[in-house]
């Protein structure tokens, strides 16, 4: 399946011209179509601005997945930042209605997996380009609500 990543410019235009994630990332994340954007996200751009419905990108491109099956899956995911490997060849299946524990010491990669699970836009973009995503991430830190609508 392909996941369309809507960057800041296209998101402001409110049109479905987001760029496609590179293959290694699009294969790594499978998002259930049951994911919905919160109403509060839509109302943020009310008034004269056009309503932005980035969830349609996901809905349009996501392969139908049974609601009873997996929510998110990572296959052989690796993240390299500033030449250093943060996580390497991590596979994870998050099933619906199941408690999933990430256990490990500091610097094990738990937060990286949490962030990629949350589909932080800056995280995904930076992990692809090799830029300094921890800095970018902290500068562009967003609420859970807005990060889910990249």
């Amino acid at each position: 399946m392909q996941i369309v990543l809507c960057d800041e410019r296209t998101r402001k235009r409110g049109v479905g011209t987001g760029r496609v994630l590179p293959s290694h990332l699009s294969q790594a994340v499978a998002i259930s179509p049951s994911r919905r954007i919160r109403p509060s996200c839509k109302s943020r751009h009310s008034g004269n601005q056009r309503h932005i419905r980035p969830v349609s990108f996901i809905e349009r491109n996501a392969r139908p997945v049974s609601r009873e099956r997996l929510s998110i899956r990572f296959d052989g995911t690796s993240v390299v930042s500033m030449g250093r490997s943060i996580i390497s060849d991590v596979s994870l299946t998050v099933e619906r209605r199941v408690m999933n524990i990430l256990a490990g010491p500091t610097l094990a990669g738990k937060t990286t997996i949490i962030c990629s699970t949350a589909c932080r836009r800056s995280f995904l973009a930076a992990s692809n380009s090799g830029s300094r995503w921890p800095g970018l991430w902290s500068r562009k830190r967003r609420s859970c609500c807005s990060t889910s609508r990249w």
Partner: protein
Amino acid sequence: MLLDEPLVNLDYKLREELRSELREIFRHGTTTVVYATTEPQEALLFGGNTLLLDAGRVLQSGPALEIYHRPATIRASQVFSDPPINLINAVIGPQGCRLSPSVAFPLAPHMRALPAANYCVGVRAGHIGLVGHDEYGCLIPAKVELAEINGSETYVHAGHGDFQMIAVLQGVHEFGLGDEISLYLDPRRLFVFDGAGDLVAAPGDSADRTGAH
């Protein structure tokens, strides 16, 4: 729901309370949760699927109890044990298992199929005590290096020859530095790792049948 070490900055009592509360909330299995933690106890408390990570790599995955009872490697046993698991180099042969020139014991049932070689055996701190309960108890004379009283438990750091051990003893025990004590470990509770660090024998059904708790 994504929870990234949500209890890490709380004081002990509040952490315990919230742990129980979270467990109660997630007990019904209606929520999809990804919960990151550094503490093996939390993983064991919540249960569910566990991904054990270290330095960006997956060490092991599966139910938390399975990882606890059958850590795949030495590193997995170290990461998933708190206090740290005691790791001791051992020589296993037909005569038994030898930890040092003065400490040897007959092989426990789950170790009998192992070929004679050098291994690393692991025993959790809670499985070392001051008394041997039966004929399997292996006595290890040791010298106290540190004794910490932690609530209702005492953490004893002791040395024997060239290896150190940590024992968690129930109750408050007062030891002075350098005191000579006798520690007992139950060979039926030993994990055995080969030279590559992979688990080759774990306390399992055979040990349970012989009465290990």
